[in-house]
């Protein structure tokens, strides 16, 4: 199958620090790809490069290329806002805006020019259903999103990301700030998301990676050490360093 995102020799500097040392990988469409590795290995940096959220960090410089459906995302003609609409992002800590649940979901569609009430209503409903939150909030759409629990807030953020109808969803440790029950709900949700979306998730939790992902990449010190089917990576790692990490010898 044709990959949806292809990275070729991607190198990234924070000023003079080389945070990514030539990452090449192909992320398959409509599957869940997990990035694992110890803190500071570059997995989050790489994730954020995929929709150019790193542009916001001063002093970042990138070499190499990342193709999204054969288009170079660093090309000068690329409109970052369109790119981020196609490749959405969910962050480590739930970050609903201080407005109503409805307005949170409608924020993205409104940005991109959807203003009709009927269309917005429908988008809000389908997005919330897609994120498995509809039944819990349908009676209080006009209430502030900040009144939701942490797990609900994170599902709201997923719904908000879905509302702009992206192709890819990047998730940066989306459950690390949540309790086990909420984590489980989000993991179940991801399993349903993969039918429609490509999901790329950074996780600290190796069990999580084995539970939910189809492909798994192991990062270490800015390099991608190993990339393959999750089952294979965890049962028969090809690289000694991957084996050491997943058996808990470091990290």
């Amino acid at each position, binding site marked *: 199958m044709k990959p949806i995102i292809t990275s070729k020799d991607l190198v990234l500097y924070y000023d003079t620090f080389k945070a990514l040392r030539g990452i090449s990988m192909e992320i398959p469409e409509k599957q869940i790809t997990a990035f694992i590795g110890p803190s500071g290995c570059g997995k989050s940096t790489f994730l954020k490069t995929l929709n150019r959220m790193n542009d916001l960090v001063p002093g970042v410089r990138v070499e190499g290329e990342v193709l999204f459906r054969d288009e170079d995302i660093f090309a000068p003609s690329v409109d970052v806002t369109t790119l981020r609409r196609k490749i959405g992002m969910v*962050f480590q800590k739930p970050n609903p805006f201080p407005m109503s649940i409805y307005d949170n979901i409608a924020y993205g569609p409104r940005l991109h020019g959807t203003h009709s009430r009927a269309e917005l209503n429908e988008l809000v409903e389908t997005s919330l259903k897609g994120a498995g939150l509809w039944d819990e909030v349908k009676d209080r759409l006009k209430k502030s999103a900040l009144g939701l629990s942490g797990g609900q807030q994170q599902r709201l953020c997923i719904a*908000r990301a879905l509302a702009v109808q992206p192709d890819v969803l990047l998730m940066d440790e989306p459950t690390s700030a949540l309790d086990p029950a909420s984590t489980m709900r989000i993991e179940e949700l991801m399993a349903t998301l993969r039918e429609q979306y490509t999901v790329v998730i950074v996780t600290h939790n190796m069990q999580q990676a084995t539970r939910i992902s189809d492909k798994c990449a192991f990062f270490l010190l800015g390099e991608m050490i190993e990339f393959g089917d999750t089952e294979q990576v965890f049962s028969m790692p090809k690289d000694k360093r991957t084996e050491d990490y997943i058996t808990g010898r470091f990290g």
Partner: protein
Amino acid sequence: MLQNDRSPRRRLRDNLLRGAICVAAATTVLLLVSLIGYIFMRGLPYISWELLSTSPSALRGTIGILPNILNTFYMILLALIIVLPLGIGAAVYLNEYATNRRFVAIIEFATETLAGIPSIIYGLFGMLFFCQFLGLQVSLRSGALTLVIMILPTIIRTTQESLKTVPESYREGALGLGATKWTMIRTIILPSSLDGIVTGCILAIGRIVGESAALIFTAGIGAVIAGNIFQAMSRSGGTLSVALYVYVFERGKFDVGFAIASILMLLVFGINLLAKFAKRRLSR
């Protein structure tokens, strides 16, 4: 085990300190209440419909402060219309766009310094620059422009402080959904920092209403009602605080002075209430 095992000396010191704090608090409240009480007691009886609704007349020998009330409102309006976009714009630039840390630090230092300069110096500058150099004469607009420079630091600082409290995650969230920087600022950042902006406005209005030194030089003491706000802008016009100074020091009318003082206090009180109300309405 749970008995009080503090030594008597320590207990004494605790009680003494507590007493001192209570005295300090009581003194503050007492001072405030007696000050307000005294001004109202001396001023309220002299507030009459004639005082509030007429211009002073030398022929009839009557005193009216309607022109001063109007001038005060014009001054607030004009100064805020100019200072809000400038100040909020500058704060947004410093907080969201400027990347050079040193440059931002220098600007912040400069605004802090500006905020500490005595107002009479602004008056002197305003008189030389706006009234004479720019040829705007002693007029409401010269006064308003002088006030703009004077309160700009306040607006910038309060706005900046509240911009800084907007969590980084809101910015990430908005940009992650494909918002442009300006859209993000307009739809997320500014609404979230409305609190600080309104606070800045209240402080600014307080300074406008209370200012006299800078305005005597630049806006003058005129007490004639102009046909409309635009005519008023180009004429000399004293605000209530200036009128208070003029009536008390030049004409020895203490009663009028206290009446104006009472009105000023009610005005500031009303504006604070209004701003609080507006804040609650807007943040919903």
